[in-house]
């Protein structure tokens, strides 16, 4: 007869093996990430970005930025997007039914007039009310699309894709500040690779405490807000460590919604962003990968270890939790929707490696952490746990976690030399040690809540992100 004790004892064995598996996965990712970053820097001058910037034959790029009630920062952000150093690009701002003065401000600042744009709805979206172009030749790269609110960034992005004229598009958020060479840097993988590149991305940084001058980063500071501090840490680990490793293994399933460049034809062929998705960036890339495997096309998705984009992250608990719940729900939604991929050899590395990784090392982790805790307490109260062993195992896991984060920071500092002084770097290091006790449990809570909402089919809510705007240098 299976007793509770035998279940608890078996679970100990399971968690032991799972931890070992998890550590091995992260060691593989660490090595892959290091190799990919090294390869990037070795090849950096293979095709110098200046050659692309000066080229008369550059690939055309449409920069699409949906805006919903962004009146507070819209003007400076659009000017920043327009100041890209690239020979062939357009900026498409999609006003997604804003209820504030976003559109009015755009019309007045950029001398916009409504034009008879022939809109081809290759991807179905909410009705488009009109297109606006500037009468001032200085802003001839700007196109504003005014549409009815679709309650999702996906719908607005799709309207932007339908209105775009170039074969590549960058999807970003209108509040993002891009480095001037972002477009040139993102286009590089499409030129350098011998395979068909369907998407590429780069590192995002947190803008909360940074100073900007004329729409460009002036001084980089470590955030002083509680949530932003931990998110900075998380972003570094995620972009420098995780994404670079998956880029090396050609297994990227996520190109961030904040900054990503895509092959337009492929995106249109898969039907664009899915407006019902809560993780539309993850879901789109999954579908694009699926299509490539089904059509048996050798493809690549690349990430570059450069900080090309600065974005404002939630700085209060409520907004932060809402965002994380949505992300978790987006993850489970995508995994469930594309469950056919799971261990399906037809989808090669996507089905055999990437998808299982997302299931076993991303999705189940919050669940296992809680279940593990329950078993520990059961063990502790009823079956007499080996306390020295528990302590040693916990310390080992904690140390490994710290090491992984520190390696990410080390690589990041070697590459970018972020932050204005030593004190800020020291603060970042201190955060590494307290993150597992404070920030991590909040994330676990948000993930589990997201999963629960998915199973209960709760109505999705995007909420409003209150923006503080940027600090500007004189």
């Amino acid at each position, binding site marked *: 007869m299976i007793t509770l004790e035998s279940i608890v004892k078996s679970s100990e064995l399971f968690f032991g093996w799972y931890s070992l598996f998890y550590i091995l996965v992260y060691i593989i990712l660490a090595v892959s990430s290091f190799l990919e970053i090294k390869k990037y820097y070795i090849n950096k001058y293979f*095709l110098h970005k200046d050659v692309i910037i000066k080229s008369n034959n550059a690939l055309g790029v449409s920069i699409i930025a949906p805006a919903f009630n962004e009146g507070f920062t819209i003007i400076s952000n659009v000017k920043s997007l327009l100041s890209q150093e690239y020979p062939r690009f357009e900026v498409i701002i999609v006003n997604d039914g804003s209820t504030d003065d976003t559109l009015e401000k755009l019309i007045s600042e950029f001398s916009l007039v409504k*034009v008879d744009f022939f809109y*081809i709805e290759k991807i179905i979206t909410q009705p488009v009310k009109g297109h606006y172009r500037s009468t001032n030749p200085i802003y001839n790269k700007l196109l504003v699309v005014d549409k009815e609110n679709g309650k999702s960034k996906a719908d607005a992005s799709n309207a932007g894709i339908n209105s775009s004229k170039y*074969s590549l598009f960058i999807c970003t958020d209108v509040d993002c500040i891009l480095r001037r060479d972002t477009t040139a840097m993102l286009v590089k993988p499409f030129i350098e690779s011998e395979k068909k590149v369907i998407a590429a991305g780069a590192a995002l940084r947190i803008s909360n405490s940074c100073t900007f001058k004329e729409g460009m980063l002036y001084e980089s500071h470590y955030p002083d807000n509680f949530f932003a501090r931990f998110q900075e840490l998380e972003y570094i680990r995620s972009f420098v460590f995780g994404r670079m490793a998956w880029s090396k293994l050609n297994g990227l399933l996520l190109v961030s919604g904040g900054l990503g460049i895509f092959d337009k034809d492929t995106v249109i062929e898969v039907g664009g962003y899915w407006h019902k998705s809560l993780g539309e960036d993850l879901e789109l890339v999954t579908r694009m990968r699926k299509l490539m495997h089904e059509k048996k096309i050798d493809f690549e998705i690349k990430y570059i270890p450069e900080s090309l984009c600065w974005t404002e992250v939630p700085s209060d608990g409520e907004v932060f939790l809402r965002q994380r719940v949505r992300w978790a729900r987006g993850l489970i939604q995508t995994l469930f929707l594309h469950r056919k991929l799971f261990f399906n050899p037809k989808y090669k590395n996507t089905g055999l490696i990437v998808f299982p990784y997302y299931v076993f090392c991303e999705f189940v982790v919050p669940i296992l952490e809680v279940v593990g805790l329950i078993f520990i307490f059961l063990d502790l109260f009823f079956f007499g746990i080996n306390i020295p062993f528990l302590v040693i195992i916990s310390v080992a896991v904690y140390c490994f976690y*710290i090491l992984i984060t520190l390696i990410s920071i080390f690589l990041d*500092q070697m590459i970018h030399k972020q932050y204005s002084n*030593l004190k800020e*770097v020291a603060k970042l290091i201190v955060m590494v040690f307290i993150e597992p006790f404070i920030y991590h449990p909040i994330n676990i809570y948000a993930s589990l809540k997201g999963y629960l909402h998915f199973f209960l089919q709760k109505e999705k809510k995007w909420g409003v992100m209150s923006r503080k705007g940027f600090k500007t240098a004189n």
Partner: protein
Amino acid sequence: MIYNKLLISFFLISFSAESIYFFLLYFFIPLIVLFVILIIFSLLYTRYSADKNEHNLEVIENDTNSFLTDLIFSDYTSIEMKEKISAFKKQYKLNANLKKYILNKIIHIKENLNETNEHTILLIYKYFGFDEISNRLINSSSWYSKSQALYQYQNIGYKIKTGYVKKLLDSKNSSLRSNAIIALISLSDEKFDVLDNYKYNISKADEVKILDIIYRKKSTVPKNINNWLQSKNDSIVIIAIKLIVRFRYKHDISLEQIAYLLTSENYKVRKEAILAVRELVMFEANDILMQHFKTETNLRNKISIIKTLNTIGTTENITFLSILLKKEENLELDLKLEIVNFINKTNASFFNSYTFEDETKNIELQKMIAHSNCPYLN
């Protein structure tokens, strides 16, 4: 059997709770703690030294910039220049980072200012001893170092090293081979003639780099450009067409050749041929293009043909295209828009008497005409 038992015992001992405990306590945790301390120390130390040296570095960089500007834009004799550089080297200890900075600065000045004297740049390069650094790099075993040397030779214009560069054209490493061919095109007096017998594939990145040289450097069209147009290497064909367009050597490409290029299986070659007709304003290629339009399978190329007609087309094209608008039910909207735009631009009153039986199509047509007439959209 015994072997299996031994293996199982080993397995059980290795993974017993006790052995894991001791492994973690005496090996795993101390090792990780050691790494953690090392990383923290190097993070803080690197940053501390960087901050400490930042001011000094800034001063040295400013001095270097002024010094280089003075050297490049003054009329010093080679002896004076040598003495000045030698004094500068004595004043500042040139560590690896500063040397890298100076070399990059020289390259930057040469690349961005048209008025620089190539001979002066070469002398500065040599007197600083950068030629020795480049030599060491090109002779090293790493392909990356060799590539760095090629980058320096190419951008400084160190033609004397062309022989070294040629040796790398058959390298097994495709990146190094690519860097070598680009450096050779840039350094060689014959420029693009070096591509004559190039047997390897030319990547998209190479194409971009070659085009960069075509547009930036003074060069002439290769003597046997006609052979290039017949090449089996599509990349060579594309570069040949671009060269002809760049130098406006209309007489180097005949109508027969355009017709031949349009039969290529590679859509990119066909695209270049269409662009050449547009850029060279080859009115006489109108019929060939219209014939090709009927068989072209690539949508972007079809659109490109119509765009080309905007330059070379006549009212005679309207008949064919207007019939096409009515006949082809499932014509792609992008193409349809381009056709309407061409007809509207060629004969503004044409659509006054042109209607579809289907009213929705008439509405669609009117929207297309409005788009075509909008001054801010074209």
